[in-house]
């Protein structure tokens, strides 16, 4: 192990001198700090909102066959007693009342049925919150031990919400189709990001770039790479998905896999189109960013540090997911949704849960498209001037300063 110390000292000191090391090292705590702050704010908001949901006022009908609910409590929330379940259901369906609770005779054995007007995936939980609160407060107010024992057992709830058209709302199933694009984006960037980066640096490292530049235009090469990478990513995706799907249909009985009835999957064409457009534009933008990064760096190794920072910026907002769902109008969500580098995750997530209105979505998509074009132009410039910089990375001053 002669000279081991010398080697270690040399490697450590030269790495510490690299900006890329410090950018990567500092990016993580900074982004984690920022995200932590967002999460703290998000949790506080979610907690408060959860409490507020139960206290929200809306028109309510109740049928209490359990005879456990204290009538004064029902009065306090403005609930109207209804004779039977069918009337209550119909009243909610037709929009006469906002919600209807049916407490069965044997609460410990039968589920409490909750019906409500659809007010959004997450706000819909207000009905169950109130039904539960009414039951628990009523039981707590009695001294009868057999009734109080219900508190120890698990009470189950069946909630059904109705759309404004009176149809049964599909709830979380609505997330699946538009949510696929969020999963796709994550999958493609996470699995393919590094390949995008190395596709450019590899040519520099192989010294092939000078022959290429004398043969084709840098824009052609860069855009060609961009598309080839998208195609490769799609191929990779299909290679993973197709056997999975085929396996599911071939072996679902043998392996007792759950039966998914795709015909019941809600399809919202607007949400799916928006999701697809956001996904494509976001993926293009990130591919362009990573290629530009590759063009500016002499080796894939050096680009790796910056790649980490880009990834942290992209997926950092995932940690603030509750905020995108519960507080889409908050300032932080608005900033993250409009700032191009952080926009993909909030946009895709908000679109999936149905709180991304069309106009803001189109504005964000426009911003993403403009950013992509700008990044590609910068990328071509860097590629042209930085392609022959085999041993050093270009500074921002050089990129901007060189005449085109």
């Amino acid at each position, binding site marked *: 192990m002669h000279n081991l110390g010398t080697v270690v000292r040399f490697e450590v000191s030269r790495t510490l001198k690299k900006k890329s090391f410090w950018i990567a090292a500092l990016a993580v705590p900074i982004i984690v700090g920022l995200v932590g702050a967002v999460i703290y704010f998000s949790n506080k908001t979610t907690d408060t909102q959860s409490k507020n949901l139960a206290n929200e006022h809306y028109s309510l009908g109740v049928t209490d066959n359990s005879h456990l609910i204290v009538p004064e409590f029902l009065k306090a929330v403005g609930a109207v007693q209804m004779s039977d379940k069918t009337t209550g259901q119909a009243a909610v369906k037709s929009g006469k009342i906002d919600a209807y609770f049916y407490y069965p005779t044997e609460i410990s054995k039968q589920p409490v049925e909750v019906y409500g007007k659809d007010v959004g995936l997450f706000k819909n939980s207000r009905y169950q919150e109130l039904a539960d609160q009414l039951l628990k407060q009523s039981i707590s107010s009695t001294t009868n031990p057999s009734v109080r024992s219900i508190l120890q057992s698990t009470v189950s709830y069946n909630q059904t919400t109705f759309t404004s058209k009176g149809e049964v709302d599909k709830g979380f199933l609505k997330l699946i189709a538009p949510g696929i694009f969020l999963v796709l984006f994550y999958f493609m960037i996470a699995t393919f990001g590094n390949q995008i980066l190395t596709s450019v640096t590899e*040519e520099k490292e*192989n*010294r*092939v770039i*000078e*022959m*290429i*530049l*004398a*043969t*084709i*235009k840098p824009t052609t090469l860069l855009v060609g790479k961009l598309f080839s990478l998208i195609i490769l990513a799609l191929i990779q995706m299909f290679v993973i998905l197709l056997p999975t799907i085929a396996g599911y249909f071939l072996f679902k009985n043998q392996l007792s896999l759950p039966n998914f009835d795709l015909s019941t999957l809600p399809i919202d064409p607007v949400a799916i189109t928006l999701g697809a457009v956001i996904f494509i534009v976001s993926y293009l933008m990130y591919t362009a960013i990573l290629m530009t990064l590759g063009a500016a760096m002499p080796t894939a190794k050096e680009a790796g540090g910056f790649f980490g920072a880009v990834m942290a910026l992209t997926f950092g907002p995932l940690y603030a997911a509750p905020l995108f769902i519960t507080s889409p109008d908050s300032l932080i969500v608005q900033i993250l949704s409009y700032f191009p580098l952080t926009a993909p995750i909030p946009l895709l997530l908000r679109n999936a849960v149905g709180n991304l209105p069309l106009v803001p979505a189109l504005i964000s998509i426009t911003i993403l498209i403009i950013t992509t074009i700008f990044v590609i132009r910068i990328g071509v410039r860097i590629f*042209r001037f930085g*392609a*022959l910089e*085999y041993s050093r990375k270009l500074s921002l001053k050089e990129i901007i300063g*060189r*005449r*085109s």
Partner: protein
Amino acid sequence: MSTTNALVSIDHFRMDFGKTTVIKDLSFSVKKGETFGFLGSNGSGKTTTIRALLGIYQPTSGKLLINGQPYAVNGDVKLGYLPEERGLYKKEKVLDIMVYFGQLKGMSRSQAKNWSLDYLRHVELEAKSTFRLDKLSSGQQQKVQLGIAVMNNPDLLILDEPTKGFDPINRRLLMDIIEEHQQKGATVIFVTHQMEEVERLCDRILLLKDGQRRLYGTVDDVKDEFGTVVLEVVSDYPIPANEKLYSIERKEGKVTTLQPKANLLMIQRSLTSSGVTYTRFELKRPSLDDIFVKVYGGTTEEKSYYA
């Protein structure tokens, strides 16, 4: 500068990198069908000039034209370029790489494949066509890269240090390939500091020093105009100094190159009286090598024949 019939014309080209001026003010032209030696020592600005000519670098000032136009990849002049910085896709198969470049140069896939296989056969690499490039020796890789440069019968062939990394046998093969393209009418710019090849192949030369043109003309003109005749003596004995009769320019083994200052008879007598016997005593024109050494020794004024 005459640009009649010029395929390449460079006019008052200047190139700065930050505060460093690499090329000060360079003008020259390369005629259609000629082989032009672009000479200079390492770092003299040869590669920079070629890169600027091909639009890879943007010149600080001046015009660099190919067939009267700035170089365009899809222009009317077919280019073959062997850069100084060698490299190809190391993880790909030899034939795949050649076909890819052939297609980039406008050949169909089958044309590129057939041409590549013919070339690989010619350079005795046919058996390696399905090998990954990094499984080939560096000399073999050079041959592949040269093949890519000469694909599709280029009108203009720019070879930057083409013999770098070649052994003498492959160097000869390379020269044959270049001559083949000369005969087909290609214009060849030969960037090098290897003077032997220049003497053998080039019609005209330009010697670059410190970003400026120092010599420019045909090989014979440069020799005639530049160098006085030298005297080459081959002897087992050391040649004594004699400032009155000659100066010693160079000594390589038994060969001593003298710059005569008196007539040859007097020099012969002087050597004999000093006890020096020789096997050869011959007047010679200076080689390009001699001229190169002299220019880079800093003793030469600019000489121009086509200015």
